[in-house]
């Protein structure tokens, strides 16, 4: 089965990142038509009807988000593209930023018009230097071509889009931490409510969406809501998702597939199965934050409904673990990542993340006790009340692994498994 290329439709083209290439195949026609001929309400209606949901992992309905922003009379309003793609195993935004920057910029322009914003920000993680350069060049092309700036597309609608860079913090992908960082402050999250739709950048109503979400917008306007909805499989899904496959699998990389594709299809049909003749031990469906699933769950759909299996869809970064992998070590690596990335703002996450690391180290070194397993659970209970999503999810890969592979944890404690270095 071929991929369904909507978001990634331009990636393989020669000089795909240039405005000329993008426009040759009808690029910016949707933005131009929206700005010149549509009303903001019509745009929001179409996006709402298409049932586009946030591709950053929260799957909040995009049309509803824009409607909320527009309903707030406070001005100015802002549109923000979240390009702080930092979830381990996730790199779909990176390819869009580097190879098709105009695709999501067009989506941003349409969103800005829909919410009557005159300023947009693109926030790109510090590590994505090349991606940022490509976006900078793309924005420049847009200004020269009258697609951005005063009176775009020959109308009196004004829109500026400003590029901002992160400085290497996972937390800044959290939308409110991103706002703080964007405003020049320390990147720690803000309390919600108020939500970004009422109080985002500069405490003004803000539509913040993932790069991939914006990239869906122009195709929706071009082909219609019904077309978009028809792309997906599974209940309540619409459109495609760019899944990122990594780990010990035959073919790693990006696969744009109907949203709701099963793990089995992704790993075996598209990824060619486990590499090196090994067998599948477990897989993480949505980056480091997602708890592992076992092979008996290969037929679950990679969509938000996966939450019933004590894991998350997340960013769609699927990581394949073969039978040589120590699940406890894998959980330890996740714990190390979150210890490194906890911003230190709230107590449960600041203290919980290193506590998880310490206990897992103890267990891996053969010095753990059965009581440590209870301790992992209780740290999780405390971290559930963390301030933001980072802490609220950071314990789940550890506790989830414990629930599905308790034997392996106990094996280390009982000295049946080799002590790790």
């Amino acid at each position, binding site marked *: 089965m071929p991929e369904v290329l909507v978001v990634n439709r331009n990636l393989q083209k020669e000089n795909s990142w240039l405005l000329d290439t993008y426009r040759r195949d009808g690029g910016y026609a949707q933005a131009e038509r929206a700005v010149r001929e549509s009303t903001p309400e019509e745009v929001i209606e179409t996006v709402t009807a298409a049932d586009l949901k946030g591709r950053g992992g929260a799957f909040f309905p995009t049309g509803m988000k824009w409607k909320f922003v527009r309903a707030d009379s406070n001005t100015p309003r802002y549109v923000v593209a979240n390009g702080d793609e930092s979830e381990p195993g996730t790199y779909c935004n990176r390819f869009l930023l580097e190879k098709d920057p105009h695709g999501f910029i067009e989506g941003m322009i349409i969103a800005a018009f829909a919410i009557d914003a005159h300023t947009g920000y693109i926030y790109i993680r510090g590590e994505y230097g090349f991606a940022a350069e490509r976006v900078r060049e793309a924005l420049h092309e847009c200004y020269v071509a009258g697609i951005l700036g005063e009176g775009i597309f020959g109308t009196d609608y004004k829109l500026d889009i400003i590029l901002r860079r992160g400085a290497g913090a996972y937390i800044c992908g959290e939308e409110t931490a991103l706002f703080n960082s964007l405003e020049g402050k*320390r990147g720690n999250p803000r*309390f919600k409510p108020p939500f970004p739709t009422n109080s985002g950048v500069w405490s003004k109503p803000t539509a913040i969406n993932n790069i991939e979400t914006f990239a869906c917008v122009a195709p929706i306007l071009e082909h219609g809501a019904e077309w978009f909805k028809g792309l997906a499989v599974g209940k309540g899904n619409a459109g495609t998702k760019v899944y990122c496959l990594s780990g010990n699998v035959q073919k790693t990389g990006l696969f744009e597939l109907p949203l709701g594709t099963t793990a089995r299809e992704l790993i075996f049909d598209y990824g060619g199965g486990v590499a090196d003749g090994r067998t599948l031990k477990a897989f993480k469906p949505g980056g480091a934050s997602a708890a592992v699933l076992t092979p008996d769950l290969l037929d679950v759909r990679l969509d938000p409904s996966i939450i019933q299996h004590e894991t998350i869809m997340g960013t769609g970064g699927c990581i394949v673990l073969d039978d040589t992998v120590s699940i406890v070590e894998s959980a330890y690596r996740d714990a190390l990542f979150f210890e490194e990335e906890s911003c230190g703002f709230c*107590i*449960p996450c*600041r203290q919980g993340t290193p*506590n998880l690391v310490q206990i897992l180290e103890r267990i891996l070194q053969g010095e753990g006790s059965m009581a440590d397993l209870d301790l992992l659970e*209780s740290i999780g209970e*405390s971290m559930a*009340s963390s301030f933001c999503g980072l802490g609220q999810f950071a314990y789940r890969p550890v506790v989830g692994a414990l629930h599905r592979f308790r034997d392996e944890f106990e094996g280390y404690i009982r000295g049946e498994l080799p002590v790790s270095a």
Partner: protein
Amino acid sequence: MAVNLRIDGVTLTAEPGTMLLTVARAAGVEIPTLCHYEGLDGSGNCRLCTVWRADGEGALLAACRSPAEEGMEIATQAEPARAVRRGVLGDLAAVDLSRTPELLDLLAEYGVEAEVEGAERTRQAEPVVDNPFYVRDYEKCVLCWRCTDVCGEAVQQTFAITPVGRGAESTIGTYGGIGMAESSCVFCGNCVQVCPTGALEPRALWELGDAELAAEERVVETTCGYCGVGCGLEVHLRGDTITHVTSDPDGPVNQGWLCVKGRYGFEFADAKDRLTAPLVRDGDGWKEVSWDAALGLVAARLGEIKAESGPDALGMFGSSKCLNEDNYQLQKFARAVLGTNNVDNCARLCHSSSVAALGMSIGAGAFTNSLDEIAENDLIWVTGSNTTETHPITALKIKAAVRAGAKLIVADPRRIELTEFADLHLQPRTGTDVPLYNALLHCLIRDGAVDDDFIARRVEGFEEVKTVAERHPPEYAAGITGIPAEQIERAARMLGAAPKTGFYWGLGLTEHTHGTEACLAIVNLALATGNVGRRGTGLNPLRGQNNVQGTSDMGALPNVFPGYRAVGDDAVRELFEKAWGVGLPAEPGLTSTDMVVGSGRGGLRALYVMGENPLLSDPHLNHTRKVFEKLEFLVVQDIFMTETAAVADVVLPATSWAEKDGTYTNTDRRVQRVRPLRSAPGLARADWEILADLAGRMGYRMEGDAAAIFAEMAGLTPDFAGMSHARLDAAGGLRWPCPMPAHPGTEWLWGERFPTESGRGRMHPVDYRTETEPPDTEYPLIFNTGRVLYHWHTGSMTRRVEGLEELYPEALLEISPGDAEELGIARGAPVRVSSRRGALECRAWITKRVSPGTVYMSWHFAEAAANLLTIDALDPVSRIPEYKICACRVELLDGAVEPNGASLRSARA
């Protein structure tokens, strides 16, 4: 519409948007908190207040930041919530909580074992002691972020401290890890007050030994003795030693926030050189004598001079630093005992122009509205006031209002801190306020943006003023003021558009030979736009000293009795004659400036000065000194041997703020109690008590304590008739007018009519006059004077506070980079500044705060006294000296001195 919810099974009703914590606490349900602090934004980061939402799918909510919703079912003690708290408390167990017993109790309640006291320090090697006022010991820090919230956007907007690092490594620090004294810290100590664990601790408290710490702590509630804001203080003492100062977050004036002087400036009261015995001049030195001997001498000399030359050969200075009771007693002494109206106070030197202008126009010279109403201003107009340094808590209110959406216009020749918060900074050449305000009025009239209805109903004299305004197009004013015409236009548009504007001004407007006219010009603007006599607006002079409002209210003025009633008014005079049992003079007396600065009507032979220091505070000091030396008899009643006391014949030791019992009246007319922290040192006595004793020796009985004096005043002064010490103790402060005991006091004035003869506000046409001494080729620069954050007036108090001296030890000349370069002056270079009247030497602070052509100095420092240079030209109406402008010359002194880091640190460009 209110929402219904259940907390722990009890049905409660709450206003929508109320946080669960507030709802629970109001209902008596206790939820533990750590990061939460009323009045801050609240980080919500400690999660200790986590509760369980039992309805729906169930959820953990932070009670401090989660609003009550219809149908919520909240269980504060549900296991998931307790598990979170247990986890949080467990995470705190390694923190040194020795100064936080209530947190230790909470740990015990949740079965969490705290680390034993004296355990090894794991988080920070040593407490950081890098400034005079507080110690930072992050071993005790729980990272609640209250301190950074206070220092940041929520309150102070100073941004000296910030969370640094991330994850478990995060801590609180300065930007770039520099020391506090090098940072932007203004040492308000508000972070120290909100710290829940003692990680930030007052240094004086930190330095106490265990034995002293164990001593019982006393807390006395009183009122700050520095500026006119009148902040409430809680002074903490062990024995007679002040350990630290806090402030009640529920306090009506300052909501718990203080500035560096209020929180840390108390040490002067314990200074070793406090006056503790009466002194009589003995050749070149002093002789300690008994009260009997000292007062006997004073009574005799005053009596002799009065007998020889009449009562008007005598004069008295009241003090804006002293109590209402002291000043009431003093003016009564002058009038009833000496028989003269030659009584005045230092309001003459600061806001006499405001009082005169407001009196001429709207009938009364006081804040028409209140500090609280700053929050209701749509536009805040600040002029001639470096508010962040001279009224720091008022500045916090302005910053808060701006943060909440108010517009701010600052009209000031200097680029002061508040300009960073302003929508518009109008930077006039010093002393050109009148054409600026006339031009604003011009634009408003031209654009039809004046309030015609208000003018028709409540104003007279508009037509004459309109004629003058018509002659002041913004282009014309731009030529005089140096403010671009388009900025004047923009300011006028903002003023015309704002529904409610509050005008706030300081001495930049008043201390000119045209000070009264400048104030009248701003009054015209307020009357034309209907911004007075209405809530959320007002003509509000920011009064300088703690009791400068009260001292004038009490009648320590040459022309009025208490309550601003003319001495020439027969009915009023009869009232006081009857009460005091003695005939009183009807002719207004001499102002302080006429007694001292000008030759006046002459003939003054003896002067009695209570708590003032004219030999540093008056203009043209060389002349002032000659006048004082010519006086036949000078009595100074003070707490220190000031520059003025040093030339006196008799010096009488009085009580300081720390020992006083009575009342101060703050800038918005709020009368508040001042309570003694301990007894007076040595033989020092209350000011009112000294005067009563002296009166007795001159044949007049003055009876009763401070409460009785206040009662007598209130009985004779309708605006205060509803007040007494007892009521002030119970009510915590009342704003006059308060005409009867059930009256709540008055927040804003003149809603119906102004207290003028016609009941209308009177506009006065005013026109531009240049300063007395413009710069010329010989003295090419404008010399401007004022104050700094760390010091107070003539420095007699603040220069005896070691920490303030450490932070700001010397006078500095503010000079613009261009002027400095032209004169070859480098940062910190020694300079000689001179005018036609005198010269001084100090070091240069090169800063863009001052515009080219102007230099600026504070007048706190006796060793480089700015008033040696200032001119003693007076405003013809208010008799205020022109402190803000004279011509000067600056020269580089030979022998470059190594910059002394300390003072230039404080003087941040």
